[in-house]
């Protein structure tokens, strides 16, 4: 092979890999992107039942109902709109009433959100940020959310 051919092989190979990578990424972006929505967004944007989304907001005080076999039901609110959520499994450490939450799953036809993942990030400041943003945007952020949220767990484990 001449110098030129070698150089071309190298560049051609590089471009081919890059093209494959771009293809993979575009494909993945089409299939695996999940949009973040507040309860109001869900209502305003008429999110289709069956579309995977992330739903973020505060767990409404007093809305948590524990059923049998680790079924839980609670409502996510941003102060304006509330959406009922069902989930089966153990809730993460940071899950509390009045506290921010991000749930991933789909809406069913009856407007109930079936979550398969409730997010708990190991950085405690990580998760609630987007929730806080959404709440601040909707004008329903209050400082005492944080205060109230600090209470239940101590009582629960006493």
């Amino acid at each position: 092979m001449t110098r030129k051919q070698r150089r071309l092989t190298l560049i051609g190979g590089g471009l081919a890999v890059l093209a494959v990578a771009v293809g993979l990424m575009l494909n993945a972006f089409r299939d695996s992107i999940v949009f973040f929505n507040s309860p109001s967004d869900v209502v305003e944007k008429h999110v289709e039942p069956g579309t995977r989304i992330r739903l973020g907001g505060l767990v409404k005080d007093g809305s948590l109902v524990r059923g049998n076999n680790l079924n839980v039901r609670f409502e996510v609110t941003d102060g304006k709109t509330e959406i009922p959520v069902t989930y089966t499994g153990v809730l993460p450490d940071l899950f509390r009433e009045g506290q921010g939450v991000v749930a991933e799953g789909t809406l069913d036809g009856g407007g109930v959100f079936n979550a398969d993942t409730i997010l708990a990030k190991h950085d405690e400041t990580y998760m609630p940020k987007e929730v806080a943003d959404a709440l601040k945007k909707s004008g329903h952020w209050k400082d005492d959310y944080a205060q109230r949220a600090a209470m239940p767990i101590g009582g629960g484990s006493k």
Partner: protein
Amino acid sequence: MIPELGHFALMLALGLALVQGIMPIVGTRSNDPVLMSIAGPAALAQFAFVAMAFTALAVSYVTSDFSVLNVYENSNTQMPLIYRLTSIWGNHEGSMMLWVSILTFFGALVAAFGTNLPVVLKANALAVQAWIAAAFELFILMTSNPFVRIPNAPFEGQDLNPILQDPGLAFHPPMLYLGYVGFSISFSFAIAALIEGRIDAAWARWVRPWVLGAWMCLTLGIAGGSYWAYYELGWGGFWFWDPVENASLMPWLAGTALLHSAVVMEKRGALKIWTILLAILTFSLSLIGTFLVRSGVLTSVHAFAVDPRRGIFILGILVVFIGGALALYAWRAPLLKQGGLFAPISREGALVFNNLFLTTACATVLVGTLYPLALEALTGAKISVGPPFFDLTFGPLFIPLMAVMPFGPLMGWKRGDLLGAAQRLLAAAMLAALATAAAFALEHGGPMMAPFGVGVAVFVMAGAVTDIAERTLVLRLPLRAALRRALGLPRSAWGTTFAHFGIGVTLMGIVGVTAWGSERIAEIKPGASLDIAHYRVTFDGTFDRAGSNYRDVVGRFTVHRLNGELIGNMQPSRRAFPDRNMATTEAALMSRGVNQLYISIGDPNKDGSVPVRLYFKPYVLMIWLGAGIMFVGGALSLSDRRLRVGAPRPAKARARGVPQPAE
């Protein structure tokens, strides 16, 4: 007085960094050896003062001196001593101090042990290192000062986030930092080469030990972080593709590529300009990793609003160093002498293949991590790019890389013999096929692709063994002779083998646990039991236990084989920290070979039942075992005499009568 001494020491270090950043460069520009020689002592002195500052902070933490705001905010007299120390880097200001301490430590290492470096390169590199240090010392003093004082000290501190009070989290950040910051050395060397306008094969040899050291630490740091997440977060995931983890994976991928391209550069003088670029990119990704994550920007663009000064300062540093380095590169690189070209089928070709896939994979991670940020900034839409994205992009790029990996070391430089390599890998390939078949036959369920994943992993491991067997001729020579050859092999050859074997082990663990792991989630009452894999786990009840600053509700479980044989007890717990009104999940792990049983529990219900998450994690320990083997491989390579920093000239070679080349 101690915090004030630390504060002042940090300021003096900044002054020294400025001197160290300017005078050696003036020296190299004007060819003045005396000015160049300032770099070394200045770097050592700078480190001494930064170390003094860090020690002062550490003393304040140990003695719980709450007149230091940072200590008051992040520790508590109730905390065990060791966590009082580790909470230094559990917060932003303290972690920045650790970062700068490590940075100057590496500078001092270069100054002290870089005796095999040409004076000009050393002076320039130390000057660049000093610019980085100066920028971050300034950042600390202006925006993240850990030495802010409170005149009337409160009598009790605020606790550290209890989730951080854990040996795993206490020790993996320093390891990660050693990795991130270690890449600053190759960055400084690259910039120094660009400033000098001269780069050749020798550069790669000088830079390789530093890259290797940083890579080793980063490997261990990532593995440590992953293991921590695995047992602490309570659901047994070992990798989440969350921005914090991606930020550490990206420099690792780029650093691995750099490690390999530096070999080509050292041996063949090729890929010079590419290697320089990689050195710049690797450290840039480290910077992005530490700081975009730290500043919270990766979480949300709005995080900037929380503390705009800090965010803008970080952005400024990133722009100046990454932008400046790339601009310098764009300007100077075309002026450098091009390296040679080579045939695609050769050791060099294989290493280029490696580089191509590693950097592309790194790019997909970068896109996946930053895309949500860009989209939010542009359109306001909030999206999350989760594991499916990375599975669909990173996976397909990484698997071919793994499949081709065993060929690399078996090919010769310049002109490789692909057929010959394939023949020699026949045994490995057959073993891999066997493993695939066995996986099909023995393991049920799981994705169709999984047995092939096992095949690739076995191929990688067997390939690594083949390579070393070929080199020692263990199958052809008598054992004694082979052993002698094995001992005579350069340690770096052993390093390659170990590192490649290690990645195969890790891959095996990832495939195994992802494909065949099983879980049971249920609420069970005392006396009830759950079956999982070959085990029956019986819940005996709960009891309370008090810790230093927490309370545990411990669940007691007995594990039997399905055939009734008793294996042991497991005691997962819920840990409540009253000071913070927080609770964490302390999972219980039981290792069976490389498999693990994993139990975590939730808060007990009133009727005595507890929510239980029970997992069987086959092969899971191989993930971290592989990382350990990679680390050992790195250490072997690093101990190779040829790379040893400041090693004396090879007297042995001369003694053997090797003719000195004519000059």
